[in-house]
Protein backbone atom coordinates (compact mmCIF):
# COMPACT_ATOMS: atom_id res chain seq x y z
CA UNK A 1 0.00 0.00 0.00
CA UNK A 2 2.90 2.36 0.72
CA UNK A 3 4.21 4.33 -2.23
CA UNK A 4 3.39 7.08 -4.73
CA UNK A 5 0.14 7.22 -6.66
CA UNK A 6 -1.06 9.42 -9.50
CA UNK A 7 -4.80 10.23 -9.44
CA UNK A 8 -7.19 8.77 -10.37
CA UNK A 9 -6.54 5.61 -8.38
CA UNK A 10 -8.23 3.31 -5.93
CA UNK A 11 -6.67 0.78 -3.55
CA UNK A 12 -8.06 -1.59 -0.99
CA UNK A 13 -6.11 -3.57 1.57
CA UNK A 14 -6.70 -4.92 5.09
CA UNK A 15 -10.09 -3.21 5.25
CA UNK A 16 -8.62 0.15 4.23
CA UNK A 17 -10.03 1.69 1.09
CA UNK A 18 -8.34 4.78 -0.38
CA UNK A 19 -9.32 6.45 -3.63
CA UNK A 20 -8.84 9.75 -5.43
CA UNK A 21 -11.32 10.20 -8.24
CA UNK A 22 -12.40 13.05 -10.46
CA UNK A 23 -15.89 14.34 -9.85
CA UNK A 24 -17.26 17.44 -11.59
CA UNK A 25 -13.77 18.76 -12.43
CA UNK A 26 -12.60 18.33 -8.86
CA UNK A 27 -10.61 15.57 -7.23
CA UNK A 28 -12.27 13.78 -4.36
CA UNK A 29 -10.14 11.96 -1.80
CA UNK A 30 -12.10 9.25 -0.04
CA UNK A 31 -10.87 6.90 2.68
CA UNK A 32 -12.83 4.25 4.52
CA UNK A 33 -11.72 2.15 7.48
CA UNK A 34 -14.52 0.26 9.20
CA UNK A 35 -17.21 2.81 9.95
CA UNK A 36 -14.78 5.71 9.78
CA UNK A 37 -14.95 7.64 6.50
CA UNK A 38 -12.99 10.72 5.42
CA UNK A 39 -13.77 12.73 2.30
CA UNK A 40 -11.81 15.74 1.06
CA UNK A 41 -11.93 17.86 -2.06
CA UNK A 42 -8.71 18.60 -3.91
CA UNK A 43 -8.49 21.52 -6.29
CA UNK A 44 -5.35 21.40 -8.42
CA UNK A 45 -3.96 19.16 -11.15
CA UNK A 46 -0.76 17.22 -11.53
CA UNK A 47 -0.61 16.21 -7.89
CA UNK A 48 0.94 13.11 -6.39
CA UNK A 49 -0.52 11.11 -3.55
CA UNK A 50 2.03 9.55 -1.24
CA UNK A 51 1.12 6.86 1.26
CA UNK A 52 3.81 6.46 3.87
CA UNK A 53 4.19 5.21 7.43
CA UNK A 54 4.39 8.07 9.91
CA UNK A 55 5.21 8.43 13.60
CA UNK A 56 2.57 6.51 15.58
CA UNK A 57 1.39 9.54 17.55
CA UNK A 58 -1.23 11.21 15.39
CA UNK A 59 -4.37 9.12 15.97
CA UNK A 60 -7.00 9.35 17.33
CA UNK A 61 -5.73 12.82 18.25
CA UNK A 62 -2.29 14.31 18.59
CA UNK A 63 -2.01 14.86 22.34
CA UNK A 64 1.56 13.77 23.04
CA UNK A 65 4.83 13.31 21.16
CA UNK A 66 5.89 10.40 23.39
CA UNK A 67 5.62 6.68 22.69
CA UNK A 68 5.93 4.23 25.58
CA UNK A 69 6.75 0.65 24.62
CA UNK A 70 6.04 -1.74 27.45
CA UNK A 71 7.93 -5.04 27.27
CA UNK A 72 5.85 -8.20 27.64
CA UNK A 73 8.51 -9.56 30.00
CA UNK A 74 10.91 -7.58 32.18
CA UNK A 75 14.43 -7.69 30.79
CA UNK A 76 17.51 -7.83 33.03
CA UNK A 77 20.68 -6.41 31.52
CA UNK A 78 24.05 -7.15 33.08
CA UNK A 79 26.37 -4.34 34.18
CA UNK A 80 28.28 -2.86 31.28
CA UNK A 81 26.41 -5.09 28.77
CA UNK A 82 25.39 -4.04 25.27
CA UNK A 83 22.65 -6.03 23.57
CA UNK A 84 20.61 -5.66 20.41
CA UNK A 85 16.96 -6.69 20.62
CA UNK A 86 13.92 -6.35 18.37
CA UNK A 87 10.59 -4.91 19.41
CA UNK A 88 7.44 -4.00 17.55
CA UNK A 89 5.81 -0.57 17.43
CA UNK A 90 2.41 0.62 16.18
CA UNK A 91 2.31 1.94 12.64
CA UNK A 92 0.22 4.87 11.47
CA UNK A 93 -0.40 5.40 7.79
CA UNK A 94 -0.08 8.93 6.50
CA UNK A 95 -1.62 10.07 3.22
CA UNK A 96 0.08 13.13 1.71
CA UNK A 97 -0.48 15.23 -1.36
CA UNK A 98 2.44 16.84 -3.15
CA UNK A 99 3.55 18.57 -6.31
CA UNK A 100 5.70 16.67 -8.78
CA UNK A 101 9.02 15.65 -7.25
CA UNK A 102 7.48 15.29 -3.78
CA UNK A 103 7.69 19.05 -3.25
CA UNK A 104 5.28 21.07 -1.15
CA UNK A 105 3.96 18.17 0.92
CA UNK A 106 0.61 18.51 2.64
CA UNK A 107 -0.94 15.92 4.91
CA UNK A 108 -4.38 14.68 3.86
CA UNK A 109 -5.14 11.97 6.36
CA UNK A 110 -3.68 9.67 9.02
CA UNK A 111 -5.14 6.30 9.93
CA UNK A 112 -4.10 3.20 11.80
CA UNK A 113 -4.98 -0.44 12.19
CA UNK A 114 -3.04 -0.68 15.44
CA UNK A 115 -4.56 -0.45 18.90
CA UNK A 116 -4.82 3.09 20.20
CA UNK A 117 -4.23 3.53 23.91
CA UNK A 118 -2.62 6.12 26.13
CA UNK A 119 -0.92 5.89 29.49
CA UNK A 120 0.78 8.08 32.05
CA UNK A 121 4.53 7.64 32.49
CA UNK A 122 5.50 8.61 36.02
CA UNK A 123 3.42 10.01 38.87
CA UNK A 124 0.28 12.09 38.39
CA UNK A 125 1.97 15.27 39.60
CA UNK A 126 4.84 15.32 37.13
CA UNK A 127 4.37 12.41 34.75
CA UNK A 128 3.89 12.62 31.01
CA UNK A 129 1.14 11.29 28.80
CA UNK A 130 2.42 8.68 26.33
CA UNK A 131 0.95 6.59 23.55
CA UNK A 132 1.11 3.02 24.85
CA UNK A 133 2.23 -0.08 23.02
CA UNK A 134 2.98 -3.54 24.36
CA UNK A 135 5.65 -5.52 22.58
CA UNK A 136 7.34 -8.87 22.85
CA UNK A 137 11.14 -9.00 22.98
CA UNK A 138 12.68 -10.75 19.97
CA UNK A 139 16.27 -11.78 19.35
CA UNK A 140 15.70 -11.90 15.60
CA UNK A 141 13.65 -9.52 13.54
CA UNK A 142 9.94 -10.47 13.65
CA UNK A 143 7.67 -10.28 10.59
CA UNK A 144 4.56 -8.33 11.59
CA UNK A 145 1.93 -6.91 9.25
CA UNK A 146 3.62 -3.73 7.92
CA UNK A 147 0.30 -1.88 7.83
CA UNK A 148 -0.18 -2.49 11.53
CA UNK A 149 3.18 -2.97 13.23
CA UNK A 150 6.75 -1.96 12.59
CA UNK A 151 10.05 -3.44 13.74
CA UNK A 152 12.30 -1.54 16.09
CA UNK A 153 15.90 -2.58 16.40
CA UNK A 154 16.85 -1.43 19.88
CA UNK A 155 20.41 -1.39 21.13
CA UNK A 156 20.49 -1.52 24.92
CA UNK A 157 23.59 -0.29 26.71
CA UNK A 158 23.97 -0.59 30.44
CA UNK A 159 26.60 1.96 31.39
CA UNK A 160 26.20 1.34 35.13
CA UNK A 161 28.02 -1.15 37.32
CA UNK A 162 24.78 -2.83 38.40
CA UNK A 163 22.12 -5.00 36.79
CA UNK A 164 19.39 -3.01 35.05
CA UNK A 165 15.79 -4.18 35.09
CA UNK A 166 13.98 -2.83 32.02
CA UNK A 167 10.25 -3.12 31.45
CA UNK A 168 9.50 -0.06 29.35
CA UNK A 169 11.12 2.45 27.04
CA UNK A 170 9.87 5.93 26.18
CA UNK A 171 10.72 7.54 22.85
CA UNK A 172 10.07 11.04 21.58
CA UNK A 173 8.52 11.40 18.13
CA UNK A 174 10.92 14.25 17.44
CA UNK A 175 13.90 12.53 15.95
CA UNK A 176 12.10 9.30 14.96
CA UNK A 177 13.48 7.91 11.72
CA UNK A 178 11.16 5.43 10.03
CA UNK A 179 12.08 3.40 6.94
CA UNK A 180 9.86 1.16 4.90
CA UNK A 181 9.81 -1.37 2.11
CA UNK A 182 8.22 -4.75 2.68
CA UNK A 183 8.35 -3.89 6.37
CA UNK A 184 8.41 -0.74 8.50
CA UNK A 185 11.65 -0.26 10.39
CA UNK A 186 13.20 1.96 13.05
CA UNK A 187 16.61 1.77 14.70
CA UNK A 188 16.87 3.13 18.23
CA UNK A 189 19.10 2.98 21.27
CA UNK A 190 18.55 3.03 25.00
CA UNK A 191 21.41 3.86 27.32
CA UNK A 192 20.99 3.09 31.01
CA UNK A 193 22.75 6.01 32.69
CA UNK A 194 22.04 5.21 36.34
CA UNK A 195 19.59 3.33 38.53
CA UNK A 196 16.62 5.49 37.53
CA UNK A 197 17.61 7.28 34.35
CA UNK A 198 17.91 6.12 30.78
CA UNK A 199 18.37 7.98 27.54
CA UNK A 200 16.61 6.93 24.38
CA UNK A 201 17.13 8.15 20.85
CA UNK A 202 17.12 7.17 17.23
CA UNK A 203 19.89 6.36 14.85
CA UNK A 204 20.55 9.15 12.43
CA UNK A 205 19.72 9.23 8.78
CA UNK A 206 22.75 10.92 7.30
CA UNK A 207 21.63 13.57 4.91
CA UNK A 208 24.85 14.93 3.52
CA UNK A 209 26.42 13.22 0.50
CA UNK A 210 29.76 12.31 2.02
CA UNK A 211 28.09 10.52 4.89
CA UNK A 212 25.83 8.40 2.68
CA UNK A 213 28.48 5.67 2.52
CA UNK A 214 28.10 5.20 6.28
CA UNK A 215 24.43 4.35 5.98
CA UNK A 216 23.49 1.00 7.46
CA UNK A 217 22.50 -1.57 4.87
CA UNK A 218 18.86 -1.67 5.94
CA UNK A 219 18.52 2.05 5.37
CA UNK A 220 19.93 1.79 1.87
CA UNK A 221 17.36 -0.75 0.76
CA UNK A 222 14.41 0.82 2.52
CA UNK A 223 12.88 4.18 1.68
CA UNK A 224 12.71 6.88 4.30
CA UNK A 225 9.20 7.56 5.54
CA UNK A 226 7.77 11.07 5.68
CA UNK A 227 8.05 12.36 9.22
CA UNK A 228 5.30 14.62 10.47
CA UNK A 229 6.99 15.64 13.73
CA UNK A 230 10.41 16.45 12.32
CA UNK A 231 8.74 18.60 9.66
CA UNK A 232 7.30 20.70 12.48
CA UNK A 233 10.77 21.62 13.70
CA UNK A 234 12.55 24.58 12.18
CA UNK A 235 15.71 22.53 11.82
CA UNK A 236 16.74 19.06 10.73
CA UNK A 237 17.43 17.32 14.04
CA UNK A 238 20.97 16.01 14.30
CA UNK A 239 20.47 14.27 17.59
CA UNK A 240 17.41 14.24 19.80
CA UNK A 241 17.26 12.13 22.91
CA UNK A 242 14.65 11.50 25.55
CA UNK A 243 15.57 11.37 29.23
CA UNK A 244 13.65 8.69 31.10
CA UNK A 245 14.04 10.23 34.53
CA UNK A 246 11.02 8.48 35.97
CA UNK A 247 12.41 4.96 35.75
CA UNK A 248 12.48 2.20 33.17
Amino acid at each position, binding site marked *: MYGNYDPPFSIEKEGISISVEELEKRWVYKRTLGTDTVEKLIIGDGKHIIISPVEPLNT*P*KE*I*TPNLLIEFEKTLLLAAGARKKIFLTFPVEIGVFISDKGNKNLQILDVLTLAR*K*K*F*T*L*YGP*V*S*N*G*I*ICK*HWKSGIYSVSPSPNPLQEGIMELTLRNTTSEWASISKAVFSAYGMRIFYDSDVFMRAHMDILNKNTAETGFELQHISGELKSFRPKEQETRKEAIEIYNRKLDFVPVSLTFDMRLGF
Partner: protein
Amino acid sequence: MGDLLKFVLILSFSIIISRIITLYLRRSFKDKVSKDAGETILKLFYYGTIIIVFIAILPLTGLDPSGLLLAGGITGIVLGFASQNIVGNLISGVFLMIEKPIKIGDQVEISGTSGFVTDIRIISTLIRTYDGLLVRIPNQQVFTTNITNVVGYPARRFELKFGIRYSDDADAAIFLIKDLVDKEPFALLNPDPSVFVNELGESSVDLIVRIWAPISEWAALKNKLLWAIKKTLEENGIEMPFPPQRLVYLHNVPDKNQTPEELKQNQEKEIESVLNYGERVLT
Protein backbone atom coordinates in the same frame (compact mmCIF):
# COMPACT_ATOMS: atom_id res chain seq x y z
CA MET B 1 32.95 70.95 32.53
CA GLY B 2 34.53 67.52 33.05
CA ASP B 3 31.79 66.51 35.52
CA LEU B 4 29.06 67.64 33.14
CA LEU B 5 30.61 65.50 30.39
CA LYS B 6 30.75 62.55 32.81
CA PHE B 7 27.08 63.15 33.64
CA VAL B 8 26.09 63.11 29.96
CA LEU B 9 28.24 60.06 29.20
CA ILE B 10 26.98 58.01 32.17
CA LEU B 11 23.38 58.91 31.41
CA SER B 12 23.79 58.03 27.72
CA PHE B 13 25.52 54.78 28.61
CA SER B 14 22.75 53.83 31.05
CA ILE B 15 20.10 54.61 28.41
CA ILE B 16 21.90 52.35 25.90
CA ILE B 17 22.35 49.55 28.46
CA SER B 18 18.68 49.82 29.56
CA ARG B 19 17.58 49.57 25.92
CA ILE B 20 19.73 46.48 25.34
CA ILE B 21 18.41 44.78 28.50
CA THR B 22 14.84 45.76 27.56
CA LEU B 23 15.29 44.18 24.12
CA TYR B 24 16.69 41.03 25.68
CA LEU B 25 13.83 40.88 28.21
CA ARG B 26 11.25 41.45 25.45
CA ARG B 27 12.56 38.36 23.66
CA SER B 28 12.61 36.37 26.92
CA PHE B 29 9.03 37.40 27.76
CA LYS B 30 7.77 36.34 24.34
CA ASP B 31 5.21 33.50 24.76
CA LYS B 32 5.78 33.57 28.54
CA VAL B 33 4.09 36.79 29.60
CA SER B 34 1.14 38.48 27.93
CA LYS B 35 2.12 41.35 25.63
CA ASP B 36 0.36 44.02 27.72
CA ALA B 37 1.88 42.90 31.01
CA GLY B 38 5.29 42.39 29.44
CA GLU B 39 5.33 45.88 27.93
CA THR B 40 4.31 47.45 31.27
CA ILE B 41 7.10 45.64 33.09
CA LEU B 42 9.61 46.66 30.42
CA LYS B 43 8.55 50.30 30.59
CA LEU B 44 8.78 50.27 34.39
CA PHE B 45 12.24 48.75 34.16
CA TYR B 46 13.46 51.12 31.44
CA TYR B 47 12.28 54.38 32.95
CA GLY B 48 12.99 53.21 36.52
CA THR B 49 16.63 52.48 35.64
CA ILE B 50 17.10 55.84 33.94
CA ILE B 51 15.51 57.74 36.86
CA ILE B 52 17.68 55.93 39.43
CA VAL B 53 20.85 56.59 37.41
CA PHE B 54 19.80 60.23 36.87
CA ILE B 55 19.33 60.82 40.60
CA ALA B 56 22.55 58.96 41.43
CA ILE B 57 24.70 61.09 39.10
CA LEU B 58 22.90 64.38 39.73
CA PRO B 59 25.65 65.61 42.15
CA LEU B 60 27.99 65.70 39.12
CA THR B 61 26.03 68.69 37.81
CA GLY B 62 26.40 70.48 41.13
CA LEU B 63 22.78 69.97 42.18
CA ASP B 64 22.01 68.38 45.54
CA PRO B 65 19.48 65.55 45.09
CA SER B 66 18.74 65.24 48.84
CA GLY B 67 16.01 67.87 48.59
CA LEU B 68 14.58 66.04 45.62
CA LEU B 69 14.71 62.76 47.50
CA LEU B 70 12.91 64.29 50.49
CA ALA B 71 10.21 65.73 48.26
CA GLY B 72 10.01 62.43 46.40
CA GLY B 73 9.75 60.53 49.66
CA ILE B 74 6.83 62.63 50.91
CA THR B 75 5.13 62.39 47.54
CA GLY B 76 5.69 58.63 47.64
CA ILE B 77 4.02 58.28 51.03
CA VAL B 78 1.02 60.37 49.92
CA LEU B 79 0.71 58.45 46.67
CA GLY B 80 1.24 55.16 48.48
CA PHE B 81 -1.74 55.77 50.77
CA ALA B 82 -3.86 56.99 47.88
CA SER B 83 -3.05 54.09 45.62
CA GLN B 84 -2.77 51.30 48.16
CA ASN B 85 -5.05 48.94 46.21
CA ILE B 86 -3.43 49.67 42.89
CA VAL B 87 0.04 49.07 44.30
CA GLY B 88 -1.22 45.90 46.01
CA ASN B 89 -2.59 44.64 42.73
CA LEU B 90 0.58 45.64 40.94
CA ILE B 91 2.85 43.79 43.38
CA SER B 92 0.51 40.77 43.34
CA GLY B 93 0.69 40.86 39.54
CA VAL B 94 4.48 40.78 39.65
CA PHE B 95 4.43 37.86 42.10
CA LEU B 96 1.87 36.05 39.94
CA MET B 97 4.26 36.34 37.01
CA ILE B 98 7.18 35.08 39.09
CA GLU B 99 5.40 32.26 40.92
CA LYS B 100 3.25 31.32 37.91
CA PRO B 101 0.44 29.43 39.69
CA ILE B 102 -1.58 29.97 36.49
CA LYS B 103 -0.69 30.47 32.85
CA ILE B 104 -2.58 31.97 29.93
CA GLY B 105 -4.85 29.24 28.54
CA ASP B 106 -5.18 27.34 31.84
CA GLN B 107 -8.60 26.29 33.05
CA VAL B 108 -8.99 27.62 36.59
CA GLU B 109 -11.42 28.35 39.37
CA ILE B 110 -10.70 31.57 41.26
CA SER B 111 -13.09 33.04 43.82
CA GLY B 112 -15.97 30.99 42.46
CA THR B 113 -15.28 31.97 38.84
CA SER B 114 -14.42 29.06 36.54
CA GLY B 115 -13.05 29.39 33.02
CA PHE B 116 -10.01 29.91 30.85
CA VAL B 117 -7.28 32.41 31.77
CA THR B 118 -7.16 34.72 28.75
CA ASP B 119 -4.67 37.27 30.08
CA ILE B 120 -2.57 38.02 33.14
CA ARG B 121 -2.11 41.76 33.26
CA ILE B 122 -0.07 43.84 35.66
CA ILE B 123 -3.14 44.87 37.70
CA SER B 124 -5.75 42.22 36.92
CA THR B 125 -6.33 38.74 35.51
CA LEU B 126 -8.92 38.11 32.81
CA ILE B 127 -11.00 34.94 32.81
CA ARG B 128 -13.31 33.77 30.05
CA THR B 129 -15.98 31.71 31.77
CA TYR B 130 -17.31 28.53 30.18
CA ASP B 131 -20.45 30.55 29.32
CA GLY B 132 -18.31 32.98 27.32
CA LEU B 133 -18.35 35.86 29.80
CA LEU B 134 -15.31 38.02 30.47
CA VAL B 135 -14.50 38.35 34.17
CA ARG B 136 -11.78 40.68 35.43
CA ILE B 137 -10.33 39.70 38.80
CA PRO B 138 -7.90 42.06 40.59
CA ASN B 139 -4.51 40.42 41.00
CA GLN B 140 -4.52 40.93 44.76
CA GLN B 141 -7.61 38.75 44.97
CA VAL B 142 -6.08 36.16 42.63
CA PHE B 143 -2.90 36.04 44.69
CA THR B 144 -4.54 35.81 48.11
CA THR B 145 -7.37 33.40 47.29
CA ASN B 146 -7.41 29.66 46.62
CA ILE B 147 -6.74 28.88 42.98
CA THR B 148 -7.87 25.56 41.53
CA ASN B 149 -5.93 24.89 38.36
CA VAL B 150 -7.92 22.25 36.50
CA VAL B 151 -5.08 21.61 34.07
CA GLY B 152 -2.23 21.76 36.59
CA TYR B 153 -1.33 18.09 36.16
CA PRO B 154 -1.20 16.04 32.95
CA ALA B 155 -4.04 13.68 33.93
CA ARG B 156 -7.11 13.72 36.13
CA ARG B 157 -9.61 11.21 37.44
CA PHE B 158 -13.36 11.23 37.03
CA GLU B 159 -16.06 9.03 38.44
CA LEU B 160 -19.26 7.52 37.02
CA LYS B 161 -21.98 5.93 39.14
CA PHE B 162 -24.46 3.31 38.00
CA GLY B 163 -27.14 1.38 39.87
CA ILE B 164 -28.23 -2.03 38.56
CA ARG B 165 -31.08 -4.30 39.67
CA TYR B 166 -30.48 -6.85 42.43
CA SER B 167 -31.52 -9.56 39.98
CA ASP B 168 -28.71 -8.57 37.53
CA ASP B 169 -25.26 -10.08 37.54
CA ALA B 170 -22.90 -7.41 38.93
CA ASP B 171 -19.81 -9.36 37.78
CA ALA B 172 -21.14 -9.33 34.21
CA ALA B 173 -21.81 -5.58 34.44
CA ILE B 174 -18.27 -4.97 35.72
CA PHE B 175 -16.83 -7.09 32.88
CA LEU B 176 -18.82 -5.15 30.26
CA ILE B 177 -17.81 -1.78 31.71
CA LYS B 178 -14.12 -2.79 31.94
CA ASP B 179 -14.24 -3.92 28.31
CA LEU B 180 -15.71 -0.58 27.22
CA VAL B 181 -13.13 1.38 29.20
CA ASP B 182 -10.33 -0.73 27.75
CA LYS B 183 -11.47 0.11 24.21
CA GLU B 184 -11.34 3.85 24.88
CA PRO B 185 -7.93 5.22 23.82
CA PHE B 186 -8.03 8.12 26.25
CA ALA B 187 -8.93 6.00 29.31
CA LEU B 188 -5.39 5.71 30.64
CA LEU B 189 -3.82 2.33 31.32
CA ASN B 190 -1.78 3.81 34.14
CA PRO B 191 -3.09 4.87 36.68
CA ASP B 192 -5.35 1.91 36.01
CA PRO B 193 -9.13 2.34 35.92
CA SER B 194 -11.27 0.68 38.58
CA VAL B 195 -14.83 -0.64 38.46
CA PHE B 196 -16.37 -2.02 41.65
CA VAL B 197 -19.56 -2.48 43.66
CA ASN B 198 -19.66 0.50 45.97
CA GLU B 199 -22.93 0.03 47.84
CA LEU B 200 -25.94 -2.24 48.20
CA GLY B 201 -28.59 0.44 47.87
CA GLU B 202 -32.28 0.53 48.69
CA SER B 203 -33.31 -0.65 45.26
CA SER B 204 -30.06 -1.12 43.33
CA VAL B 205 -26.55 -2.50 43.46
CA ASP B 206 -24.43 0.65 43.03
CA LEU B 207 -21.34 0.47 40.86
CA ILE B 208 -18.58 3.05 40.65
CA VAL B 209 -16.27 3.52 37.64
CA ARG B 210 -13.09 5.53 38.23
CA ILE B 211 -11.03 6.48 35.20
CA TRP B 212 -7.91 8.58 34.67
CA ALA B 213 -7.73 10.54 31.43
CA PRO B 214 -5.45 13.14 29.83
CA ILE B 215 -6.41 16.57 31.11
CA SER B 216 -7.49 17.75 27.65
CA GLU B 217 -9.77 14.76 27.06
CA TRP B 218 -11.46 13.89 30.34
CA ALA B 219 -14.69 15.85 29.87
CA ALA B 220 -15.43 14.43 26.41
CA LEU B 221 -14.51 10.93 27.57
CA LYS B 222 -16.77 11.21 30.62
CA ASN B 223 -19.77 12.20 28.52
CA LYS B 224 -19.06 9.51 25.94
CA LEU B 225 -18.60 6.71 28.47
CA LEU B 226 -21.64 7.65 30.56
CA TRP B 227 -24.01 7.00 27.68
CA ALA B 228 -22.00 4.13 26.17
CA ILE B 229 -22.04 2.21 29.46
CA LYS B 230 -25.78 2.78 29.93
CA LYS B 231 -26.50 1.52 26.40
CA THR B 232 -24.17 -1.47 26.65
CA LEU B 233 -25.62 -2.60 29.97
CA GLU B 234 -29.17 -2.36 28.63
CA GLU B 235 -28.22 -4.22 25.43
CA ASN B 236 -27.00 -7.04 27.65
CA GLY B 237 -30.19 -7.19 29.70
CA ILE B 238 -28.81 -5.28 32.69
CA GLU B 239 -31.13 -2.46 33.67
CA MET B 240 -30.91 0.53 35.90
CA PRO B 241 -33.96 0.54 38.22
CA PHE B 242 -35.88 3.70 38.99
CA PRO B 243 -35.72 4.83 42.60
CA PRO B 244 -38.53 3.28 44.74
CA GLN B 245 -41.83 5.15 44.63
CA ARG B 246 -44.36 4.69 47.46
CA LEU B 247 -48.01 5.35 46.67
CA VAL B 248 -50.24 6.16 49.62
CA TYR B 249 -54.04 5.99 49.19
CA LEU B 250 -56.05 7.93 51.76
CA HIS B 251 -59.57 6.72 52.33
CA ASN B 252 -62.14 6.29 55.11
CA VAL B 253 -64.12 3.13 55.64
CA PRO B 254 -67.64 4.08 54.52
CA ASP B 255 -70.45 3.92 57.06
CA LYS B 256 -72.86 1.19 56.05
CA ASN B 257 -75.83 3.48 56.92
CA GLN B 258 -74.62 6.31 54.63
CA THR B 259 -76.65 7.02 51.55
CA PRO B 260 -74.75 7.32 48.20
CA GLU B 261 -75.18 11.15 48.31
CA GLU B 262 -73.68 11.37 51.80
CA LEU B 263 -70.81 9.13 50.74
CA LYS B 264 -70.07 11.37 47.77
CA GLN B 265 -70.14 14.52 49.97
CA ASN B 266 -67.73 12.93 52.47
CA GLN B 267 -65.32 12.00 49.66
CA GLU B 268 -65.39 15.59 48.34
CA LYS B 269 -64.67 16.90 51.87
CA GLU B 270 -61.76 14.48 52.15
CA ILE B 271 -60.28 15.66 48.86
CA GLU B 272 -60.76 19.27 49.96
CA SER B 273 -58.98 18.66 53.26
CA VAL B 274 -56.06 17.04 51.41
CA LEU B 275 -55.91 20.04 49.06
CA ASN B 276 -56.01 22.43 52.03
CA TYR B 277 -53.23 20.45 53.68
CA GLY B 278 -51.22 20.85 50.50
CA GLU B 279 -51.81 24.59 50.47
CA ARG B 280 -50.85 24.93 54.12
CA VAL B 281 -47.65 23.06 53.50
CA LEU B 282 -46.92 25.20 50.48
CA THR B 283 -47.51 28.44 52.35
